[in-house]
């Protein structure tokens, strides 16, 4: 099949990839850029493991064609921590025990990040709405919710003022 050059901006870096038109963003990230932090749990948009941010909004990269991401800013789990410094959300997931096997974690962390960047004081309903597309089989979600609460606290504290989620 013919390949097209697709210009992608991922974690602030620009790439020109020669891709067949049916290649998904997930395949482009994992197979062409080696960014394997983004996971495929089902490939059909049911589990949320492949969540990445497209212009700050969480999307399912398994259902998104790479070619449709031209001109957008894509952020994957590898793009969150800057200079080895974890974000408030990543730190909260660690401290609260919201990570077990870790397979849902990248998608979960990105969904929470998108939520808190847009809405730093989410209600319980906002939180549930934001995470309803991300399945986790290990934690029962209890400690994930605790982690979100801690991240909210960190971001809104005087020290965390202006800090990115």
């Amino acid at each position, binding site marked *: 099949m013919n390949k097209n050059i697709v210009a992608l901006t991922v974690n602030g870096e620009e790439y020109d990839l020669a891709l067949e038109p049916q290649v998904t963003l997930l395949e482009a990230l*994992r197979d062409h850029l*080696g*960014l*394997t*932090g*983004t*996971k*495929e*749990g*089902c*490939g*059909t948009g*049911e*589990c949320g*493991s492949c969540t990445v941010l497209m212009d700050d909004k969480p999307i399912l990269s398994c259902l998104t064609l790479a070619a449709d991401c031209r001109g957008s800013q894509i952020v*994957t*789990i*590898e793009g*969150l*921590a800057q200079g080895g410094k*974890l974000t408030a959300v*990543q730190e909260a*997931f*660690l*401290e609260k*025990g919201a*990570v*077990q*096997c*870790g*397979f*849902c*974690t*990248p998608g979960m*962390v990105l969904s929470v990040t998108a939520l808190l960047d847009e809405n730093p004081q989410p209600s319980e309903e906002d*939180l*549930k709405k934001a*995470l*309803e597309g*991300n*399945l*986790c*089989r*290990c*934690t*029962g*979600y*209890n*400690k*994930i*919710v605790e982690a979100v609460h801690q991240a909210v606290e960190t971001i809104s504290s005087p020290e965390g003022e202006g800090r990115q989620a």
Partner: protein
Amino acid sequence: MSELEYVGRRVPRKDGPEKVTGGAIFSVDVRLQGMLVGKILRSPHPHARILNIDTSRALQVPGVKAIVTAADTPGIPHGFVETPRYPADQPTLAVDRVRYVGEEVAAVAATDHYAAEEALDLIRVDYEPLPSVFDPLKAMEVDAPEIHPNHPKVKEPYRNIAGKTETAWGDVERGFAESDYVRQDRFESHLRTHGYLEPQATVASFEANGKLNVWTSSQGPFIKRAKLARTLGLPLSSVRVQKAYVGGAFGGKIDLFSHEFCAGLLSMKTSRPVKIVATRQEVFCAYRHGQPLIVEVKTGVKKDGTLVAQEYRVINNPGAYRGSGVVVIFLAWGFAMLPYRIPNLKYEGYAVYTNNPVRAPQRGHGAPQMRFAAESQLDMIAEELGLDPVEVRLKNARQSGELLPNGDNVHNCGLSDCIKEAAKSTGFSEKCGQRRKAASSERYRRGIGMGVSSYFGGSLIYPNSSSVIVKMNDDGSVTLLTGALDIGQGAETVLSQIVAEELKLPLEEIQVIAADTETTPVDIGAWISGGAYVSGNAARVAAEEVRRKLLEIAEEELEASKEDLVVDDKSIYVTGSPDHHRTYRQLVEASIRKHRGDSIIGEGHWRTMRDEPMHPSLATTKGRWSENYAFDAQVAEVEVDTHTGMIRLLRAVTAHDCGFPINPLLVEGQIDGQVSMALGHAFMEQVLMKEGRTLNPNWLDYHMPNIHTLAPSEHIDVITESYEVGRPYRTKEVGEGYVSAILAAIANAIYDAVGVRLFSTPFTPEKVLKGLGALARSDENDTDV
């Protein structure tokens, strides 16, 4: 005794930073140069003879590098159980017959998945369909289609018997005769899947030196190595299974799977790395789920609720090959007899071949099904006799030091305290039985229920034991080598905490090398609930040896005797004079300088029941089983909508005796996850099958709990053991014992709310409405399970 600094603390995971940044490499993430894509051709028939397989057209597809069928294999079968009584019964690729829809018939390796899929379409297999059977009771009938010949030791007039467990003690007939009240009930459970988020995935790479390197999503590398080497006809040492993180397993990734064998064989054929990743649909349709049981239980009690006699008959449907089906019917006996004293008991369990996909252990491995039956019936008995359900449980609960009928000692047993604490924290006695009477006209009705369970830890099954090596580095930090695989339970963290405690060394200074059959010592595996106890004690012994060696050198260096030395903060000093000290770094240096190059390395080994040569008999239950049993009582509060039959779990309280929680944060995580899984079991999850085909092979149609169905989970620690530096410790499992009692508690709470007794899972609105008389009873659904 000095204060514990690392053990018993809420320490964040060792592997956490890698996992929150996307750096953790799972099997699905492994990429090697020149790697091929492997795909599996599966049987479309539940039972058929294979007349011919023609791969000639498929081999013509550009990019196809190899195709393998049974003819290319060494023809060595495998099984979850491989014993003289229960020899391996499953081919790695179907030979002349397929026995379930999805059975592996051929495998292709190609340069990309398009070529691989095209080749699958072009492999021509001629089948002659055979009669098939899916229901275990029908499969037992003498005129049922024969899937495998009966097990030779089974004398009953049945067919398709894969195995039988039979045991008894006391005199059950006399027990029933002496009982004041006897009742008999039948309970059924349904088919659920594990729901691990990382699909089954394997990368195999056959190197020029004859070594097969393997990364596979599993629950421990050593059993995979053993089974891969044997089925591929390779020496054990020619297979190396290496660490990759695992995206959940829950019992579904233990023994050998055909795709692992095929990845290895295809790599050997092509001399290129081969990766096989199952699609989610394949996981649902062709891989192993849990095992529904039919449980018939007859119980006799005295008027005061004292258990006198119990008789069980259990039927298991493990699918077309034995899988762990004969283990479940053994374990079901254990889960029947563990929590309560039963002076007279008779048990028989059958595993029956059917033309369903093979089935696997699933968190709890039979315990949820058995405790659902036993605890539901116990509530019925209590109500009949006008007894308090809490009192009945306390009256029969095992106590510390009791011996089980197989000779096991339960040691410190916190069950009575678990029952009391769970009841107290929920106001159980004030609530139970009250609301049903008081509010019968209200639409939303609340109820409370209790269940009790117990689970074993670290039993004897290959590889039986764990070893750990702790190496001291030149800078005074240590490297911990363990064969344990962290599948999310936190193995690396727990072992590090133990080493940190024994050596008074910060966790950051412990580097873990794990789960590599080549470089790390053997480990029992993350599937027999023995990590914290067996591997943990091995780590403790290894660290203790390092500590002893450090102290010996410190004695020379500080010219003091061992009794006067204190280990703290990466140094050893003389009591009372902290300035007179040597750091670990100095001690390592001294050891190498003055002891002709001796570096400091400790090794530790542990096994349960060291005087027992063998695991217990699956057929007779004779022989020791475990030396550590965890106990728990769980309480559920539910709300039932009497108009719709919908049920909500309002509160789930787990009072648990896990011995000593080495990391309370991880313990809570385990409990929360299990309560959530039980909620899915109770209300949401069901694999629907019709004639061996899966009807709902995706997460839109198979409903796992999501954030909207979060189970409100509370924990109460009942601590019965302690940890002391330099001494063996006994702790208990927390990984799978808490999926069971809560299921029974939910069923009992539903009864408490609306008076509807449910004898089968899942607890659907239809069943509730039928029980309320609001929906006509009819012959249920048209699916098989």
